[in-house]
């Protein structure tokens, strides 16, 4: 017999009966408050409840219930997303997938693993590294973020330059559709199945098409060798020319990261400083990996390029510890902003690599005009720029200014032929900026796809696409009014 919960909300009691785990539903304000946003903190809203299903069947039951009673709902992993994708704008029932965190199977021979959506990204690599394998997509939040969330956002990471983003590593999905039906996509990792690429469609759909409950991922063999280079430049332009030059030599580094002066100030003031000089304009972190033969030559080429671009100092990591320190310093870069600013807003533009100096100078201008500092962390190799707008939400007007400055940065990216998100997703944050890159009809085409999966728009509504562009829905609403 299920104990009746202390609430007048009849749905809460009914939802609770669909769940079998201990304390599997939260509904008190004090508990819900921890779920009022994700890593994007500008918009906050309380959910109706948070439920913790144990398996796919429980997810399906919850979804069926929500669909039947027209309750808005959404899925959440670790809540490390940076665009508000897991924020319950419509008082949603949050379906937390963190208790579904098993590594279901590992098939080394066919280089694949099956995980539940709450499985932590880095745990996968850690649990197979002794067998000589790893999972390539490495978002900086990989210490905490879930693979389910990675699929929703099509997460990238520093090493995606060479190995591709999440979508390149997903071989199969089990998905609970917004009506509660369970479907399986991908034929156990057999590539190139005929028909539409639905895995590709679901991956990166930001939780608007279905809830992923099982994921088959590709695992890779550890590279035979790895070398990491750190290079300091007095001039950002020199640094970015070096990036282009390295790619031009034919080397595809595993990763090529850049931080500007303000970003360096933050990481050096935070928990993992490595002693970057305070007065340099840019630091480049470059990693090459692969079979041992040829790595030395690649490093020599990289050092030569850096020298030709007036590098002040350049060094190769001498030990695994040193490499790990450099990466910890870089990967905690966003959180490190806390050390120099009460709040930050991270943007996620993509630009053609060659336009970097120009883009940085325009971002600098935006910073001056808004009176807010902007730090830049850059996946330089693939042109994915992260301007971090620093502000203080307690200062009246600061949040609005930060949002405007962030949007202006994205406009610059779009204007130079880039786009508004490389890996963080659109979520709530970049909804309006979608218009920088899509026309109304392009947006409509996409919302019509959403309608096929999510016809009542109960699942994660108000995300990804701006609403006035949803002509189809407007028409439908008008029809309803007329009839």
């Amino acid at each position, binding site marked *: 017999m299920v104990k009746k919960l202390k609430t007048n909300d009849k749905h809460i009691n009914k939802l609770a009966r669909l769940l079998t785990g201990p304390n599997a539903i939260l509904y008190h304000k004090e508990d819900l408050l921890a779920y009022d946003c994700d890593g994007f*903190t500008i918009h906050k809203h309380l959910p109706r409840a948070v439920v913790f299903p144990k398996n796919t069947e429980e997810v399906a039951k919850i979804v069926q219930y929500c669909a039947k009673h027209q309750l808005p709902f959404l899925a959440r992993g670790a809540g490390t997303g940076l665009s508000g994708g897991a924020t319950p704008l419509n008082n949603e029932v949050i379906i937390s997938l963190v208790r579904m*965190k098993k590594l279901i199977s590992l098939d080394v021979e066919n280089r694949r693993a099956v995980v539940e959506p709450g499985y932590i990204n880095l745990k996968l690599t850690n649990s197979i590294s002794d067998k000589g394998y790893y999972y390539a997509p490495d978002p900086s939040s990989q210490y*905490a973020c879930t693979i389910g969330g990675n699929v929703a956002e099509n997460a990238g990471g520093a090493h995606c330059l060479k190995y591709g983003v999440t979508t390149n590593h997903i071989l199969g999905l089990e998905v609970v559709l917004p009506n509660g039906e369970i479907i399986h996509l991908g034929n156990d990792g057999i590539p190139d199945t005929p028909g539409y690429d639905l895995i590709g469609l679901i991956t990166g759909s930001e939780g608007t098409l279905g809830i992923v409950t099982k994921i088959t991922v590709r695992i890779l063999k550890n590279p035979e060798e790895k070398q990491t280079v750190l290079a300091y430049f007095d001039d950002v332009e020199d640094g970015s020319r070096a990036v282009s030059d390295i790619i031009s030599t034919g080397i595809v580094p595993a990763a090529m990261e850049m931080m500007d002066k303000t970003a360096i100030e933050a990481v050096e003031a935070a928990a993992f400083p490595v002693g970057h000089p305070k007065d340099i304009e840019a630091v480049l972190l470059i990693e090459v990996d692969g079979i041992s033969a040829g790595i030395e030559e690649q490093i020599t080429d990289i050092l030569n390029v850096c020298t030709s671009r007036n590098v002040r100092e350049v060094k190769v990591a001498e030990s695994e510890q040193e490499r790990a320190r450099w990466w910890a310093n870089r990967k905690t870069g966003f959180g*490190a902003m*806390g050390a120099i600013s009460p709040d930050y807003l991270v943007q996620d533009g993509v630009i053609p690599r060659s336009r970097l100096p120009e883009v940085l100078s325009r971002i600098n201008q935006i910073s001056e005009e808004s009176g807010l500092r902007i730090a830049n962390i850059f996946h330089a190799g693939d042109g994915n720029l992260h301007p971090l707008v620093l502000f203080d939400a307690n200062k009246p007007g600061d949040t609005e200014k930060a949002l405007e400055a962030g949007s202006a940065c994205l406009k610059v990216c779009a204007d130079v032929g880039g786009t508004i998100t490389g890996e963080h997703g659109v979520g709530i944050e970049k909804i309006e900026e979608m218009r920088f890159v899509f026309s109304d009809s392009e947006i409509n085409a996409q919302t019509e796809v959403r309608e096929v999966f999510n016809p009542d728009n109960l699942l994660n509504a108000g995300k990804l696409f701006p609403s006035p562009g949803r002509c189809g829905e407007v028409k439908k609403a008008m029809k309803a009014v007329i009839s």
Partner: protein
Amino acid sequence: MSLKEMIKDPTCTTKSLTNYKWKEHPDEEKWADCVHCGLCLEACPTYEITGQEQHSPRGRVHLIKSVAEGKLEVNERFMDPVFTCLDCRACETACPADVQVGGLIEEARGQIRQAMPLSGWKGMVSKVFLEGLFPYHNRLNKLGSLLGIYQKSGMQKAVRKTGLMKVMPQHLVDMEAVMPKVNPPARKKYKNQEVIKAKNESKQEVAFLTGCIMDVMFSDINESTINVLTRNGSDVTIPKNQTCCGALHVHAGNRETGRKLAKQNIEAFKDADTVVVNSAGCGCMLQDYPELFREEPEWQEKAEQFSKKVQDISKYLYDTGYETPSTPLNKRITYHDACHLAHGQNVREEPRDLLINIPGVEMVHMPNADRCCGSAGIYNITNPEMAGAVLESKMENVPEDVEMISMGNPGCMLQMAMGVEKYGRNQKIVHTVQVLDWAYKQDDEQKERGVPDG
């Protein structure tokens, strides 16, 4: 809170939105650093077990901030996440922005305890133990002697045969089962000795905090600490007026008593240049004293000076140099990082170094060695269920084939001993400094027997 209540409550210190109405608000500076990135989640044992974000560091910081913003009241539901925290500070190690979550939690607990003083059974337990026992070493000693009598007189055997164990809560029964054999405390033994002289040439003088649990339950570890210190050229003093460090009080939200004890210790150790501690929890608390005096600048300065003198025994030996034992000990040992050593004091390599340098010691790696064991002061008494779950996940990481688990904190030792008992393991639980002391004793025996070194 109604106006009437507010008038009734003279300690109300602010008229802003905040729902913290009592002395010592949680420090805004501390949560201002949190940008909600969530990298702390996986580091948190209570999040690992519940999967719920109100039981994660980020969630707790968010709730603590929300009370200050007037969005939440200081009530039972706020209390739950704040008191479910183990205060292990693993989140502080993980945090890119160095947010001091532990300090915030303790300050929030201070508010909760002022808002909702403990009453009934819990209130009594807290009064008897935290306020009536720990601050008074003579009372602790008496309890220790009683424990000794209990164990030696056959009473322990008798009690175990009675039905008493059946009616006691399980976690207390488990604890009773692993209670160490009690010896006379070091403070008593050396009470007439101003200075315990270094065995050979004296290089420096250190003051030693004997701790309360340590001295009553594990006085042999204190004995080992003194042996190791004097053998390595330190004159050791045990300042008479020293008292309990106050960690248990501060963890429980009783900051007033914490401050009282802190002041007494700061005074007691004022002539010392170095204060050596062998209990991670105490050492961390002593180093955190300045936090207690945010509203008393004069004492804060004294506390700052004091806290800089405090060092864990392993770090002290590592930094000042120590004799490497020469007789092989031939043991397979794994090391558990006490939270308040690893996360609280950033002491990780030093104790491992001590162990590795003993010949014949084979160090076996423990995965997630710096994961909390669930002891967390008196957490295992106040939150037995969660402590049990945390312990279970800890024990899964203890390698099967080791003979000893070494660590630097008495609370962990009791908890890990319970783990060994409960999960049918057979490791001996030891303090790092004990292992070194045993190695020295072996050297001495060899020497007596006239066997040449090596």
